[in-house]
């Protein structure tokens, strides 16, 4: 078979793509009109489940960028069982994450011992000003609704859940 010159082959590739796009549609998505769903594990934004937070500061301490700010106060809560002594709990006054600093590494979510932080694939929270990216606990709690279930694991994985 005679060798097809490279110049002709190149023209073939572009023409082939042209027909593919015309018949099968483009590979791009018309963003504001249609949206792709990010994968379940996608690290879009950190959501906070306020009730679980004990303000132990672990997330704040393990943050490489120092972008989590926690302030809390102690309060007495009704006892767990009847007749017990009242418990002392930490109540959050402030839980801010500065998304302008956040590197989306997920260490805070991982170290949280009480399952108070979760990843949500939500990504549409850009702001016109960098200062507006500091989100407080109420905003972080709103994102809890978008947190998906953890996906099933591939065959052969260790079944033990963390």
């Amino acid at each position, binding site marked *: 078979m005679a060798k097809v010159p*490279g110049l002709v082959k190149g023209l073939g590739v572009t023409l082939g793509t042209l027909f593919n796009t015309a018949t099968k549609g483009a590979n791009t998505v018309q963003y504001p009109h249609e949206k792709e769903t990010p*994968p379940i594990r996608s690290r879009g934004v950190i959501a906070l489940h306020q009730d679980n937070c004990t303000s132990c500061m672990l997330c704040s301490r393990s943050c490489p960028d120092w972008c989590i700010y926690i302030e809390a106060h102690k309060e007495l809560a009704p006892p767990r069982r009847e007749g017990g002594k009242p418990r002392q709990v930490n109540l959050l006054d402030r839980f801010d994450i500065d998304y302008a600093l956040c590197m989306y*590494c997920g260490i805070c979510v991982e170290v949280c011992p009480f399952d108070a932080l979760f*990843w949500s694939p939500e990504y549409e929270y850009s702001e016109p000003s960098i200062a507006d990216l500091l989100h407080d606990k109420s905003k972080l709690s709103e994102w809890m609704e978008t947190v998906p279930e953890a996906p099933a694991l591939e065959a052969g994985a260790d079944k033990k859940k963390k």
Partner: protein
Amino acid sequence: MSITENVLGDRQRLAYIASQAADSRLNVELETEGMTLNIGPQHPATHGTLRIIARLDGEQVVWAEPSCGYMHRGYEKLAEVRTYPQVTTLINRIDWLGSFANEVPFILAAEKLMEIEAPVRAQYIRTILFELSRIANVSLFLGDLGVQLGAITPVFIAFRDREYVLNLIESATGGRFHPNFDRIGGLKDDLPAGWVDETRAVMKKLRGFCDQIEDLLFGNEIFQSRTRGIGVVPRDVALQYGLSGANLRASGVDWDLRRDHKLPMAWDKVDWKVWTHPDGDSFARCWIRLQETRESTKIVDQLLDLIPAGPVMAKVPKIIKVPEGEAWVSTENPLGEMGYYVVSRGDLGPFRVKIRSASFNNISITPWLLRGVYVPDIVTILASLYFILGDIDR
């Protein structure tokens, strides 16, 4: 250059440029006055902020030197104030196109100091993700190569097919660009269900992509005439400058750390080939990368069949203190040899991390290589040496 840079520094630099230019004046008969061309810091050929000061005689480069540091982020200093798990988030961002591959040598160095090893399943998944990040990185190179040489279409084809790989990385790790998935002792999590089948399908697509790029670019006679014989690096020079990866193999050195270093990874379990090229020119470097992308898809395909069952995390304490010692581990990253020299003092964080990034060495050859070429060849040579700015400046 910062505004505060003093005049003396500039004058010294100009004097140095003049002295260098005098040595290698090409057009002696005409004695034409040259021109100093600043390519960069913002220039499409430098895809980032690299500046190249070139002394031109017409279109011919008399002398050229890259000036880097516009993106220096001081990672070596920053790593000293961070704990081991925190460092991986930083080094993700050195070569931002192949992030997962950056994490691996650091984690391996820390594991070496701690004398632990990741479970076999984790080693396999690590290797797969490593190769995926290589594909993500090099496929963009293959597309970008077209743009550098004036063809607009390859880059779009590259972005199209690279998207599949990024989706895979994201669905496994959660991060498209910065996975931060590697942990001392294993991996953060196991793979999600269905991932293996999806990966197989994508690998098939990527082999198609390689064929398309070969037809569109590598087979093209214009491309060949632009790259063949341009920027030839002989074997000895390549070794002396510490070129690594495809750049070294294109100069005929048969050395691939994946094959030649014994690392707790899964490369030795599968069948693949290390490509070398005797020419050492720009075409050889690009061609080697194309072949390596193909090999990577083969490695991934074979490993997917072989992943053993089991845990992905070894037993490590929750708060990691690495014992005192020094360790050097390097791997064959998409850009070349990427290594970390980790010095530990038994603390939560490293005492000193020397990051040996491939691009820094790869680009340090340019003053030698750019002498006497034409202006368009600067672009060809820089493109074929393939650097990521973050990898030069760290």
